[in-house]
């Protein structure tokens, strides 16, 4: 049962997965409520292109991916400001093109198939202490920023135009959020990979949304689901001998199914209770 804890790389993997679970869940709450799930997915693909370019050019992955990610975000923002291009189309064009750059370089080179798979599906066992430190630093950065900009972020997420009318500097807030999202994607890429990252951004917040109608409670529940599934996903992958990213996402999907069943059963019970109350009230009216 404690076998995975005997190996340093597994401890690193479990810590990294917990951090990434927390990170994606925290940022994911805003992603989901802003209906930006597609951006998370697109950005992960775009940054994959940046990762390959960094590899080929011999630049540090984090430096290359950050620059690539930031450029993608600003290009998306710029393109979607034009009336003729909708936001989702802008994401589609820019992130897929950036992804295609990575695929093209790989198809020409052909010598980094292993890295290609790692980038697509995550390679948690190869996480170094530096990777872990960077992921932890991003977690700290994200939480400090969320703390400072909490009210503004919640207000702009709820109603962008009205927040602006109430004096919230929406452009700054949007810019800060885009950078947080890019940083989260970059820090999580190695654990979850391009293909699974979008799921980790979406499933914990949606699960939490099923369980509460309060924003702050949704955030806390999503954070708990993300962190715990991150930890136990990595832990279980040791025993199942499976990809850690896939195990984490499937664990999250299982929690989602449980939450969905609970929410469905609860709303049925509430409806039945309301019908019974109405029937009793009807009987009372008939009697008196």
């Amino acid at each position, binding site marked *: 049962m404690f076998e995975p804890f005997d190996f340093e790389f597994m401890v690193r993997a479990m810590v990294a997965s917990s951090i990434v679970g927390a990170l994606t869940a925290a940022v994911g709450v805003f992603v989901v409520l802003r209906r930006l799930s597609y951006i998370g997915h697109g950005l992960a693909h775009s940054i994959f292109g940046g990762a390959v370019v960094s590899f080929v050019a011999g630049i540090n992955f984090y430096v290359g991916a950050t620059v690539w990610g930031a450029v993608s975000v600003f290009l998306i923002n710029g393109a979607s400001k034009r009336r003729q291009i909708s936001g989702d189309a802008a994401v589609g064009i820019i992130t897929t093109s950036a992804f295609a750059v990575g695929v093209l370089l790989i198809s020409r080179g052909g010598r980094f198939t292993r890295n290609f798979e790692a980038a697509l599906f995550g390679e948690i066992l190869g996480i170094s202490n530096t990777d872990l430190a960077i992921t932890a630093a991003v977690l700290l950065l994200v939480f400090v920023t969320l703390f400072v900009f909490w009210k503004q972020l919640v207000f702009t997420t709820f109603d962008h135009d009205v927040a602006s009318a*109430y004096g919230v500097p929406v452009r700054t807030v949007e810019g800060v959020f885009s950078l947080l999202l890019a940083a989260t994607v970059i820090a999580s890429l190695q654990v979850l990979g391009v293909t699974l990252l979008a799921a980790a951004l979406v499933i914990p917040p949606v699960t939490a949304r099923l369980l509460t*109608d309060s924003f702050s409670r949704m955030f806390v529940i999503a954070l708990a689901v993300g962190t715990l599934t991150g930890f136990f996903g990595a832990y279980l992958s040791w025993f199942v001998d499976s990809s850690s990213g896939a195990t984490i996402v499937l664990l999250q999907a299982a929690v989602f199914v449980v939450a969905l069943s609970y929410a469905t059963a609860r709303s049925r019970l509430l409806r039945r209770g309301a019908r019974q109350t109405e029937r009793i009230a009807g009987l009372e009216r008939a009697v008196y």
Partner: protein
Amino acid sequence: MVERSNPTRPIHHGPPPDRARAEALVSVNALSIGYEGTLVLRDATFRVSRGEFIGVVGPSGSGKTSLLRAILGQIDRFAGDVTLHRAADDRAPRIGYVPQVETVDWNFPITVEQVVLQGRWREMGWRPWARVHDKKLVAQVLDRLGIGDLRTRSIRALSGGQQQRTFLARALIGDPDLLLLDEPTSGVDIKTRHEIIHLLGELNRSGTSIMLTTHDLNAVATHLPRLIALGEGQIISDGAPEKVLTPETLRQVYGAEMLVLRTGHRVYVVDHPDDDLESLGPLFGDEEAAPSPDSDSPSIESVSLRDGP
């Protein structure tokens, strides 16, 4: 009869402020506004004085919401200017804004209290959470609007009137000098509309200047002391309902024939005169001929209305 068929009682105001002398709150001067290079409203000039209650009317797309957004500084300004006049104590005027309820995401996980606190995001400082003082203020404003018991309720579980009051509370918690409301009575039932209009009347009497947009000429606009009518991308008319709601102005504003009935200080607009005149027939005394649909002369004012059964 007319009063009974239209349950909204008129708002009782004091005499309308003498705009020439009343203290100015907002001055809009030769303003042209729009979105991404497309002109929505051109050459608008008017003034809002402290204590006024103004309705902005006009068809969809005439620039009603844009005009409110111009006062908020939220729209591209092509020409002209909007001046917010400082009060005697040199304080910049505070503006509260209540959006159309149709634009609100009702599935957003947020409670009534959390929505109202958004109106104090600046005063709450760096803390993400509300202090006891903030919560007390929220409770006070919710009590004032009669929804104090809904503080912890999710906005999803509110009725139309409660939703409108919640967003009104968010605007009022900032103690605004001017309250801007975008279609506050759209999509609500008659009773709620009645409550909202009277609530706004009370707020206005307590000193808040109000400017609202409305599609509802008879139930809302005719009860307000001043109307600004927009059409064809400009202000067509500005003044008391008796001045603004005339067949000529309404034709210009809506591009359709409308009949205006007057009884005392009440004005009633019939927007499909051909269809409606027949049904309005019983309103008129036997000895009185029903006005013809194309009649736009003041003679309509002489039509007396018979009491209902």
